[in-house]
Structure formats: structure tokens, C-alpha cells
């Protein structure tokens, strides 16, 4: 073939479809991507370092700012990690509320993923529908925590306050509408021939590679491994719920996309069960004003966040602040396969792949 120039194109850091601060440098040969160099650190806010200067409680709001699309999930993970570290028992009712909030967050995150994929692929209307449905979740968050996005509701030892009266009807009606939403996304986007052509066989991540790179979450499940920490190593009270783990085998963008839509339904199922079994009682355990762990104790706690395995590793030196805190951010690890899945594709596939890998830069750069 005719030799053409190998040239580098910078996608990002300020680019509409890099999900905030990702800088992917595509090495292109004509229209073919030869390699992608991922530059990270544009959103590095030194969160792990900040953690060392904050008490255990004070750090809670920061965790919400890691994966801000699924606010309650990183907070839940952190709180559970600290509870594990300190041996705090969480009241039953709080556990159920937490599950509801966590799954709502998962839905919100997936809806953002759906919307963002929509706009990245040019289906602006898809974005609007996704965001529209997400607003209902935002309302529920505002109802409980007081803020739309970073609701700051889950606390160490439980949740901030009991749910208000209008909470259950709102959640119930949202859950009832989930199948309708899924139909709409599928009708507008998934079933669309253009959509399918843009996604099918694009950015294939094989089972082996996914495992090798440590990819988790929907991306891993799209590659054919039905691995979900909610099932594999149930935390909280997830073992009480009956739900499925959707898995596909292709590992391409379409599968990753479909997995997310299917997970909406599964999350809906979990919320429904939690609503049905919601017990009465306290929502926050009695915890001391100053939390201190024994010196030298350490804990690693992982949960299934919307993006994959989110782990917190906390080391204590006996003070009221963590000695060291590390976050195993799923986005960071999932993002590492971006060059792998993009190689050999065309330029537009890069955008598709970024969208369907659904990284959150706040989490991966920390």
C-alpha cells in the first residue's frame, strides 16, 4: 500500500467527547488508528493525599467526588470500608436504604453512560431522553440528601437522615417506568441500523485480555465473564436479593452498551425487592464522635460500582485520620485497554470506544 504519514491527533484534553479531561493521543495511519497514547492526570486532584489530612468522617464527601455519576456508590464503598475497619454495625433499615440509593446511583451512572454514548455517536436525542429519565433520580437524591448530584446522604454508620415520606412513591414509580425507558433507548438507539453498524465488532476486548488487564464491571461482563462482586463476594446485604448478572460474549462496543441497558432492569429488580422488604428502625448506628482505629490495622473493601470493582484500602496508624488511603478505581484500569481495543479501528471508533468503556476521569485520576 501507499505509504501515508503517521500522524498524531490529540483528542482532548478539551474536547467534547472525552468525558472530562481525558487526553487520548491517537497515532493514525491514514484513517486507521495504530495506537492510542492515553495521557492521564488532567483531573488529578490529589484526593488520596487529601484523605491523609482529613478525619474519617470528613473524607466522606470527598469520595462522592470520585465517581460523581454514581455518587452514592463510592461513598458506600468508603463508608463500608471504614465500618469494616472499626467494626461498626449498620442498622437494618439503613442497609436497605443504602441498597436503594446505591442501585439508583448505578442506574443514574448507566443513564449518563447511555446519554454520553448517544451524544458521542451523534444521537443527540438519545442524550436528552437519558438525561430526562435521570432527572427523576436526581429528584430522589435531592429528597433524601438535599443535593441533586452529590447528595451526601450515606454516612459512616448508616445514612444521614431517615427517608422522607415522598421517597417511596417516587422510587416506586421510577422503578415501574424502567422497562419503558429501556424500550425507548433500545428503540431509538440499539435497534437502529446505523447504531448497530457503528458498534458491532468495534473495539473487541477478548475474555483473556479483559482478565489480563484486570478489567471489571460491565466491560468485563460484556467480554463474557459474569463476574460481579455483588454476587461473588456479597457486601452489605446483597446476598438477600435475587437478581441476575447480565453477560454477553462478544466483548465489542455493542455488547458493552447492551450490558448497561440490561443492568438498568436488574437494578430495578433489586430496588423493588428492597422497597418491599424495607424494615422500620434506626437509620444510623451510634458511633463515637471521634473515630479511631487501632494502630496498624488495615482494610481492603471492595464493592461493585457502576464502572467495576471499586476498592478502598485504608491503613490506620491509630489516629483519627487514615494513615494511607488508596482507591482502586475501576475506570483507571478499564481505561488501560483503550489502546488495545482501538488499534486497527478507524478514528471514529476511538470515540465509540471511549464512550462505551465509560471511564470517569475523576475516579481514574483521583
Amino acid at each position, binding site marked *: 500500500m501507499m505509504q501515508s504519514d503517521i500522524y498524531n491527533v490529540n483528542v482532548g484534553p478539551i474536547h467534547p467527547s472525552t468525558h472530562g479531561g481525558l487526553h487520548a493521543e491517537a497515532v493514525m495511519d491514514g484513517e486507521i488508528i495504530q495506537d492510542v497514547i492515553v495521557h492521564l492526570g488532567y483531573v488529578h486532584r490529589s484526593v488520596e493525599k487529601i484523605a491523609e489530612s482529613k478525619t474519617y468522617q470528613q473524607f466522606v464527601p*470527598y469520595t462522592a467526588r470520585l465517581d460523581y455519576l454514581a455518587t452514592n456508590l463510592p461513598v458506600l464503598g468508603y463508608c463500608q470500608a471504614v465500618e469494616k475497619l472499626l467494626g461498626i454495625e449498620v442498622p437494618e433499615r439503613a442497609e436497605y436504604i443504602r441498597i436503594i440509593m446505591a442501585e439508583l446511583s448505578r442506574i443514574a451512572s448507566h443513564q449518563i453512560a447511555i446519554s454520553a454514548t448517544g451524544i458521542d455517536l451523534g444521537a443527540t436525542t438519545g442524550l436528552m431522553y437519558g438525561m430526562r429519565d435521570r432527572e427523576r433520580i436526581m429528584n430522589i437524591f435531592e429528597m433524601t440528601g438535599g443535593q441533586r448530584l452529590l447528595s451526601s446522604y450515606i454516612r459512616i454508620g448508616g445514612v444521614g*437522615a431517615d427517608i422522607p415520606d415522598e421517597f417511596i412513591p417516587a422510587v416506586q414509580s421510577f422503578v415501574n417506568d424502567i422497562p419503558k425507558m429501556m424500550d425507548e433507548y433500545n428503540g431509538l438507539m440499539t*435497534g*437502529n441500523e446505523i447504531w448497530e453498524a457503528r458498534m458491532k465488532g468495534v473495539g473487541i476486548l477478548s475474555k483473556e485480555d479483559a482478565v489480563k488487564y484486570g478489567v471489571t464491571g460491565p466491560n468485563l461482563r460484556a467480554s463474557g465473564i459474569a463476574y460481579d462482586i455483588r454476587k461473588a463476594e456479597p457486601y452489605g446485604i446483597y446476598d438477600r436479593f435475587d437478581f441476575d448478572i447480565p453477560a454477553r460474549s462478544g466483548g465489542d462496543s455493542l455488547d458493552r452498551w447492551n450490558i448497561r441497558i440490561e443492568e438498568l432492569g436488574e437494578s430495578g429488580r433489586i430496588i423493588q425487592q428492597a422497597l418491599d422488604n424495607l424494615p422500620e428502625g434506626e437509620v444510623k448506628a451510634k458511633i463515637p464522635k471521634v473515630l479511631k482505629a487501632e494502630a496498624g490495622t488495615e482494610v481492603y473493601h471492595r464493592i461493585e460500582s457502576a464502572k467495576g470493582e471499586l476498592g478502598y484500602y485504608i491503613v490506620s496508624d491509630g489516629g483519627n485520620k487514615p494513615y494511607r488511603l488508596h482507591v482502586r478505581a475501576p475506570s483507571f484500569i478499564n481505561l488501560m485497554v483503550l489502546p488495545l481495543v482501538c488499534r486497527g479501528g478507524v478514528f471514529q471508533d476511538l470515540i465509540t470506544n471511549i464512550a462505551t468503556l465509560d471511564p470517569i476521569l475523576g475516579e481514574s485520576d483521583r
Partner: protein
Amino acid sequence: MNGQGLIKGLGITLKHFFQKEITEQYPDVMPELATRFRGCLQFEFEKCIACGICVNSCPNNVLSFETEKSENSKKKKLLSYTIDFQYCMFCNLCVEGCPKDCLHFDHDFELSTFSRDDIKRVYLRPAEMDEEKEADAAPVQDEQESKEQKQIDAMLKALQKNPQKILAKMLEQEEDIGILSELMQSNEKTAGKIAELLVKDKEKAAKVAAGFVTKEKKNRLQAEKGGEE
């Protein structure tokens, strides 16, 4: 396949075309906010006991206050309370921690400013608080006098620091407030008088202040005319 998906998509958008819009018309219609909505952090000076829990629980050093130990009682006296709102992350920890419920979030979210300095709020000790206390306190003449003097000094300081806020209680027009504060800056005597009156007799203070303003206005008008001629 074969375009059925495309047609279905067209159908969906067409359906939505005729559906009702979900838009909320914000500036015309205020949004319905949840009761727990956290807009702007408000502080009630009167209730605060200066215990410092809020300051300690805030993750980001948003809150700070100045206290003064008074001689006659062991209690700390709160002089000013600062909310440096630009660092707040609306986590509600301070509100939950406060034993006296003097912090709360209201529903005001329209906080935009043209200058970064306007974001910070400083709450100064309102004068009435001390007055009420005085009424309760035992009437020891000398002590009271010295106390009064102190109050006047504090008031003077406050007046110099933030005249608008205090004067706003006496004067209605913003223009007048500006004039008076200017006047006070240039003339210490006036400031002293107003501070004294403020501490002693509120109504009289208002009257005097109004008088000052009208006088100054006249002066200025004349000065302007003179300039023109």
C-alpha cells in the same frame, strides 16, 4: 434490519414531538425544591454558643469564628463568625454537628456574584444581643459604664469594618447608607456619635443618622452647584 430500526426510531422521536415538554421555566417559575435542599448556608448569631464543633467537623475549613473571653463570665463571647462559602462542599456535616441548630441551609441557590470577595460572609455580633444581656446583668454603674465604652468601641470597629450592614438597620435608602458611611470614614466624631447612640438609644440613632444624611446631601448639592458656577 433493513431500515425497520430506523423507522422505529423516527416513530419514537415523532411521538415525543407531540408529547408535552418537561421543561421547567426557571426564572419565571421557581423550581420546586425538596425540603432538605441545601442552597445557602445560614448562620444564626444569637443561638451560637461558640462551641467550635462545626469548625472541627467541617472538612474544608470553611467555618471560623472569633471569640473574646469576657471577664465577668467564663463564657466565650462570639465576636464574628465567618463562612468562607467558596470552599464549602455542602456536605451538611456542620449542620448535623451543631448542638444549637444555629446553622442551616436555606433554599436560596442564586448565589452568583461578580466578585469573589462577595462569596465570603462574615457575621458580626449584632448590637442588640449585648443590650439584652445588659438589661439582665446586675446594674453596677461603673462597670456598666466601662462596659458601655467597650461596646461603643466594638461598635465603632464594626462600623469601620462593615458599615453597610449595620447602617442598613437604620436607613432605608442605599444611597443614604453610602453617604453616611463615607461621612463616618472622613469624620471620626460623627462615627463616634453614631456608635454611641447605636449602643444607647436605637431610635435616636436613626433620627440622628437621618439628620446627618440630609445635611450632608444639602452640602453636596451646594458644592455641586458651586462647581458648576
